[in-house]
């Protein structure tokens, strides 16, 4: 049964395969408000990287501007981090990956950072299929500037000040599916078990993973009338499926009723196991994904789980056909063509 796979990930040993402890993946002390959903996500990031035995030195963390974008300082201190400019972390991450495609890039953004100023860069990163785990910590408000609506705020949602949002929200998951993203998930900061498996799948995925996490803002958007509050999210959370994750080296016997389980193999040989809660939902179909997202939005549900999976799509690095070694470390002997090359060019110009 699917529970068996969930069990293996829950049984965390004291050291991972690299001989590192969970504390080797921790970060600085958070300066966010107590109870902030973002901190819960940071904890699951720590857990996922630890349990997946990813060397923290291989990871590079990126963020834009906003509360969410501060969080890379609160996990994986042994990884390089880059707090970029508002909405334009995708460009910085893209450049860094072009320089060294061996790094494992994780970007943390918010709904303000991604859905407004950063929408263009977000979309082009997805379109290119840059290998980035892109997490949107979505609370429907601008926290750091004290509570203005963002573009993901639901229509009719109320600010603390009583202001009602009368514009429709953007669904970043639907947008990602539309742009051909190969790994699209929605999570809830209040569901750590689901979150950690979504993250593990993203770590194993080759290409952009878009993970939209409903992460309530306890200070500016957790009141009655908000559609991104803890109570609202708990009440309206609509699970697509239970998610299990099996690493490539793990052998798990799975028994399940035919037709109730979907298994997808990822780039590195790991497997995502989805125990279906809806018989007719196929997470590898973009049309199904879009349809289900639209239906949930209309019904006022907050659909969580792996919305769309298409692991075969080539990443931008694959398309560039670059040498295996990171470009940043290539010696000049390799990157400077020989004198004969310059002589040839000069002769052509004479």
């Amino acid at each position, binding site marked *: 049964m699917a529970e068996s796979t969930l069990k293996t990930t829950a049984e965390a040993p004291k050291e991972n395969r690299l001989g590192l402890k969970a504390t080797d993946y921790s970060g600085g002390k958070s300066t966010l408000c107590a109870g902030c959903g973002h901190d819960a996500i940071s904890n699951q990031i720590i857990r996922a990287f630890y349990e997946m035995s990813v060397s923290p*030195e291989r990871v590079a963390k990126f963020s834009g501007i906003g509360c969410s974008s501060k969080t890379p*300082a609160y996990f994986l201190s042994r990884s390089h981090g880059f707090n970029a400019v508002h909405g334009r972390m995708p460009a910085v991450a893209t450049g860094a990956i072009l320089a060294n495609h061996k790094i494992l890039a994780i970007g943390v953004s918010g709904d303000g950072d991604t859905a407004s100023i950063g929408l263009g860069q977000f979309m082009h990163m997805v379109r290119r299929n840059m290998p980035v785990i892109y997490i949107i910590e979505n609370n429907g408000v601008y926290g750091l500037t004290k509570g203005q609506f963002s573009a993901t705020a639901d229509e009719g949602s109320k600010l603390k000040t009583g202001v009602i949002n009368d514009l429709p929200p953007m669904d970043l998951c639907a947008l990602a599916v539309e742009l051909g993203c190969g790994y699209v998930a929605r999570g809830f900061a209040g569901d750590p078990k689901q979150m950690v498996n979504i993250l593990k799948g993203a770590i194993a995925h080759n290409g952009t993973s878009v993970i939209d996490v409903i992460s309530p803002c306890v200070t500016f958007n957790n009141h009655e009338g908000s559609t991104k509050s803890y109570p609202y999210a708990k009440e309206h959370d609509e699970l697509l499926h239970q998610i299990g994750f099996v690493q490539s080296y793990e052998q798990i016997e799975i028994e399940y009723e035919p037709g109730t389980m979907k298994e997808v193999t990822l780039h590195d040989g790991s497997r995502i196991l989805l125990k279906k809660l809806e018989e007719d939902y196929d997470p590898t179909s973009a049309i199904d994904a879009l349809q289900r997202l639209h239906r949930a939005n209309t019904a006022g549900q907050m659909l969580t789980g792996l919305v769309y999976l298409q692991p075969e799509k080539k990443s931008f690095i694959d398309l560039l056909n670059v040498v295996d070694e990171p470009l*940043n470390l290539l010696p000049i002997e390799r990157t400077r*063509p020989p004198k004969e090359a310059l002589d040839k060019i000069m002769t052509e110009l*004479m």
Partner: protein
Amino acid sequence: MSDTLTATAVLEEPGAAAEPMVNDLTIHVATVNGSGSQSSNNVLMRSIFQMGVPVSGKNMFPSNIAGLPTWFTIRANKDGWIARKKEVDLMVCMNAQTARDDVDALLPGALCIYDAPLGCKSWRSDINFYEVPFAKLAAELSTDSRMRKLLTNMIYVGIVAELIGIERDEILAAITKQFKGKQKAIDPNVAAIDKGVEYAKANLPRQNRWRIERMNKTAGKIIIDGNAAAAIGAMFGGVTVVTWYPITPSSSLCESLIDYCRRFRIEKDGRANFAIVQAEDELAAVGMVLGAGWAGARSMTSTAGPGVSLMAEFIGLGYYAELPGVIWDIQRVGPSTGLPTRTAQGDVNQVAYLSHGDTQHIVLIPSSVKECFEFASEALDLAEIFQTPVFCLSDLDLGMNNWMSEPFDYPTEPIRRGKVLSAEQLAQLGGKWGRYNDVDGDGIPYRTLPGTDHPDAAYFTRGSGHDAFARYSERPDDYKNNLDRIARKFETAKQYVPKPVIDQRDGAKIGFIAYGTTDFPLEESRHQLSAERGIETSYLRLRALPLTDEVAQFVAKHDRIYVVEQNRDGQMADILRLHLGEEQRKLRKILHYTGLPCDARSITEAVVKMEASAEYPEMLLVVRADPPKKRVTTTVAQTIARGAED
């Protein structure tokens, strides 16, 4: 026009017997954009070049794909003066939209070849007109209308060649080169040349006023535009990540780089040791450059003024967070809907101080295609050494026009990659290091790259809110220390940037300061001042910011300093004023800003005027070269046409 000072265009009565002017003329070809005249003009220019005569070619094109007027100016000069010259000696009128203005602008005695239906010869009696029935001649060559249009352009090359004495073999060689040896393209074009030559021989009166004769001043030289030169320089400078967004006049830089890298930077297994990415906009392009620089790649982009504006915020982050990256700014006129296809030196202030807060940037300013080649690599070095964005300031004239040059030298120096700590070095340090710690006293700290396999390698990159160990800090002393150290870095940069090139003349009271493409007309103007007026001048050519000590020393040696530049406000003069203190009183400005490249005569006239008149006190003076003429017409075509004669 009463250019009595013009040495190269002495006024004469038409038809009067005169000594032929050998290897000194300007050919101006007016065509319609999109008519395919570029190949013909290149062939014309190259054939003169192959006859050993120094030459330059300037394409003045509209912001348009097809239909608007365009001009190509070829200047051949035995003494090597290849700046723009205002006076046209041989006009080729192929465009009905501009023919009237093109003819009006000619000096008496000039030659004018024109397409028969234009009927130019009735307009003026002091011009030597040559009427050619191009349509009829082209019809004899091809039945295909598109082909006839293209061959028409090659026919005028044949006419010009016959009139001024360009050898047929050299034209054939130029055609072979232009069409890359493809016989199918070569044959009809050669036929068109011969058609023009035959027609001229049989029907047009001979002229002996301007001649091209074989000489030996171009042997071993190359012809290239500055953008391609910069691309080659970057490729040999080991650039690995290039991200860009198309914008005139910079696009051809990265496009050349793509072409060259595909030829010379693909490894044996067929894989690329570079990544060139067309970004979604300039904001992303520079963000990628800085992300790549942060991760340790030699990275660059190219853009023009409006693109630089968009990059401003990221450049500020790059300055404070200390991220390497190179930005080529191929300057042009005005905003997006300005004159995007015209040249200017108008981004000096913008790049010198781009972004928020206290920012000042390292700027390299090439004056020639050779310096484009050299600075492309040097900028990559400086960006990595100083861990900061570095600008290369070129312009449309240098970047997109054809220039003659000595071949480029293969770089023998190793590249310099700055202070980067490896995992081994970190182990030796016991992991104790501070990302922003100035251990060497030069303001330049050490950095590590993501992916470095050592538990203490990582640090968190953010703007200026950090201490010397990259820990988050809002402490006043941390912030101030940070800013002061970055300023120290800029001070250190003075020892590293290319020094100005100085030509100091004994006893000269006048000194010039210029930079970039102003160099070409300025050197010619100095020659004019000396030959025509006996005025000796010194010259300092700036090649970089920050300004180095040589500048103040140069100013101290002269009574008056003329700062010549191609913008309205005297942007470099302002930077010099801040730099010079008391000595700034010596500065005078000569400003050329018509969208066209500056010419020598405008500078010479300005200097003569400013030197002679008591009206100008010993303080900052401004003489604006090329004053606008009265406008009598207002259509777009005519307005652009006016630009041609300005």
